[in-house]
């Protein structure tokens, strides 16, 4: 593998990390397989697109806006819908969020039409040269933001009271309740965090890919792979999972052929699950399987 494809793989991994981390968080903590994750990414991308189109706001500066609006939607989804079925079992939340993502995507189709939109800041397509390899500014920016968000999330989970409550809930729901944690609220906050991260991912993806109502669908499949690679609910694991997936896809495309990219990522997923179900860097006790 040459330098260019190594760098491409790493930078692609940065994008994937942003996509996977929120999904993994919600799954690991609230035991919800959030199929609206792709739709939330799509809505985040639309927030960025309209901020850019109407207000001339730079897509990277629109990230907080996309995150805040998705956090509100995410909190409402968990508090007023998912909390009613979360106790019944993980597969009911899966069907519920599937229905919800149909609603979100079809609403977006109504509101924004199916037209392909793009966010084109002045630096789109520009990059710098590093030992013969071209590094696009946008991809390196996304990589940096992905690292920053992972670090901020880590700080939040480690040093704030809410973050500790979330971690306590992930480890043992009943025990957390006994020490006074309001599970309903904590689940909603977790979902809001996951949605905010999806919004951030959407904001950044809008600079790379066309913005359409169905743009989130392929990202949902990637999110599954990344979450399982990294270990459910594991923040730094998602970063590792994103990088591994990015590198594996780039390497596979170079070695076997680009059409096998999907087969590689899903083959990798099955392999990891068969050998190390707790993920590459996951610990066994974290986010135990709860049905």
């Amino acid at each position, binding site marked *: 593998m040459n330098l260019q494809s190594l760098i491409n793989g790493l930078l692609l991994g940065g994008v994937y990390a942003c996509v996977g981390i929120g999904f993994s968080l919600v799954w690991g903590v609230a035991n919800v397989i959030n199929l609206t994750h792709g739709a939330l990414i799509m809505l985040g991308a639309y927030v960025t697109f309209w901020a850019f189109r109407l207000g001339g706001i730079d897509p990277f500066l629109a990230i907080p806006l996309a995150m805040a609006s998705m956090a509100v939607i995410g909190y409402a989804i968990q508090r007023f*819908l998912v909390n009613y079925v979360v106790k019944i079992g993980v*597969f009911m939340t899966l069907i519920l969020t599937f229905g919800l993502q*149909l609603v979100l995507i*079809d609403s977006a189709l109504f509101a924004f039409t199916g037209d392909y939109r793009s966010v084109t800041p002045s630096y789109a397509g520009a990059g710098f040269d590093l030992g013969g390899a071209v590094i696009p500014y946008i991809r390196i920016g996304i990589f940096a933001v992905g690292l920053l968000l992972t670090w901020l999330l880590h700080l939040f989970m480690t040093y704030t009271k809410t973050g500790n409550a979330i971690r306590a809930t992930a480890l043992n729901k009943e025990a957390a309740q006994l020490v006074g944690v309001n599970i309903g609220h904590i689940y909603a906050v977790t979902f809001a965090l996951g949605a905010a991260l999806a919004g951030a991912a959407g904001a950044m993806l809008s600079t790379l890919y066309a913005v359409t109502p169905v743009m989130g669908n392929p990202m949902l499949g990637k999110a599954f792979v990344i979450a399982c690679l990294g270990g459910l609910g594991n923040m730094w694991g998602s970063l590792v999972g994103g990088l591994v997936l990015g590198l594996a896809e780039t390497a596979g495309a170079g070695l076997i052929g680009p*059409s096998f990219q999907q087969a590689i990522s899903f083959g990798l997923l*099955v392999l990891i699950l068969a050998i190390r179900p707790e993920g590459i860097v996951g610990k066994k006790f974290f986010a135990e399987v709860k049905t």
Partner: protein
Amino acid sequence: MSRRSPFAVRGSPDGVRGAVGPPVLLAVIGVVVALLFPAVATGYWIRVVSNIFMYGAMAQSLNIMAGFTGYADFGNTVFFGLGAYGTALLTSKAGLPVVPAVVLGALVGVVLASLMGLPLLRLRGHYFAIATIGVLEAAREIIANVPFFGGGMGITLPISTGAPEAFYGFIYYVLFAVIMAYIGITWWLSRSKFGYALRAIKADEEAAAVMGIHTTRYKIRAWRLSAFCTGIVGGIYAYWLNFIEPPIVFDIMISIKVWLIMLLGGAGTILGPLFGAIILEMLQAVIWGQFLRGHMLILGAVIVLVVIFMPAGFMDLVRKRFSLRAVLADLRANKI
């Protein structure tokens, strides 16, 4: 696990008995209506009801694995796709007649289930679900990229002889026979030693092992049975449509739809999958017919409402005798 969990084991999996008047009479009426239906209905409705039978049969196959054994197979469509591809390849390239081709095609899935059983059935809950999704997606990509399987172009089956009306009527009766057979298999499961072993595994796998159930062996057998039943439907589907391609028969949306049907009807029940298929297909026929735009929005909203208000499925609603008070009490009890 709460008492109302769709994955909990109930005392009797056959919740209908006693809940609906004389069930035998109703069943006989249902079968007679289904048998006479093609004589009076238009082609469109024959197609809708054929779809009900097909998806009901798929949900019944999934029920063996997910409803009885408690293993969440989200990739069961892989057996559907392999059955369809096996049938297509054997009839178009090997020139085999349809019936042996369908059976052999389904056996391809059984072989895959046997191979995957040992590494994947060790996984529980989510992890098993995701692994099966991975297998499905990888299988689709591999088949789409290997020229021998027709690649992205798909495969055309030999055109069936005879008038279209007769052919579609024939498919209708075949699918009806299949779902009746699967209901019979599920009924047998609900009272055989094999079925009890599977439900013991779902309730508590360690306890089942302690009680002397060879859990791995039983789980693999259940998966083979589920794979075979799904594969048969896949083969019939390929014969019905005459043309298949990877994105159609390995579509994750088929898995989601079959799951929805099973949960709508009631997981682990005998007639649930059939009722689930009737509800969903009828809803779709009505919504698709009425709303050219926005039908996904309405379908999505219906799914959300159904999951919140009847999480244990239609059969549970029958057990509650359609009492609104019981539904709302459950809703409050489930909220966190």
